[in-house]
């Protein structure tokens, strides 16, 4: 399923809303999660899962083409842990 298919399904389930409104709802939903993670916070959705960030320490990497060492700065990366209910639904 891709974003446009999600929007189409929601539009069908909510005939009182225009496609444009549903599109804005979906954008707002994902943007709220993005913004929270960008601020270093967490988003916990019971039954679905939790989004958080994990920090990676600085390290010396290598340019895979030339083999030259390059310094990689410490950074945060997004992380998702599926919820219990979600895991159960995937394995029925």
């Amino acid at each position, binding site marked *: *399923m*891709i*974003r446009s298919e*999600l929007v189409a*399904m*929601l539009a069908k*389930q*909510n005939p009182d*809303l225009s496609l444009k*409104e549903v599109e*804005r*709802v*979906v954008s*707002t*939903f*994902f943007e*709220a*999660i*993005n*913004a*929270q*993670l*960008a*601020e*270093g*916070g*967490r*988003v*916990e*959705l*019971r*039954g*679905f*899962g939790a*989004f958080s*960030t994990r*920090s990676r320490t600085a390290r010396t990497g290598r340019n895979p083409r030339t083999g030259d060492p390059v310094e990689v*700065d*410490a*950074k*945060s*990366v*997004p*992380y*998702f842990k*599926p919820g219990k209910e*979600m*895991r159960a*639904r*995937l*394995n*029925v």
Partner: protein
Amino acid sequence: MAVAGTLTRADLAESVHREIGLSRAESANLVEQILENMCAALSRGENVKISGFGSFILRDKGERIGRNPKTGVEVPIAPRRVLTFRASQMMRERIVKSA
């Protein structure tokens, strides 16, 4: 919006209510429907790809032999399906800067 801390469904519904101007009840319903539609697609075995956000990817794991770390007894681990999330380039870039 709360600085750091943890957001929940209620906060996402509140964002929808404020941004779009739908009622609180309708906003909460829509948040639930987004999650339910994604969950349903994943449980049908479909990957879910949201542009600008990321992809939820299913992986099938084969059976393997595990070991109870306390007793050392070997136990079979049944084949199962796991869910991984790969964030979009856009999300990664925004998060790197917050480090």
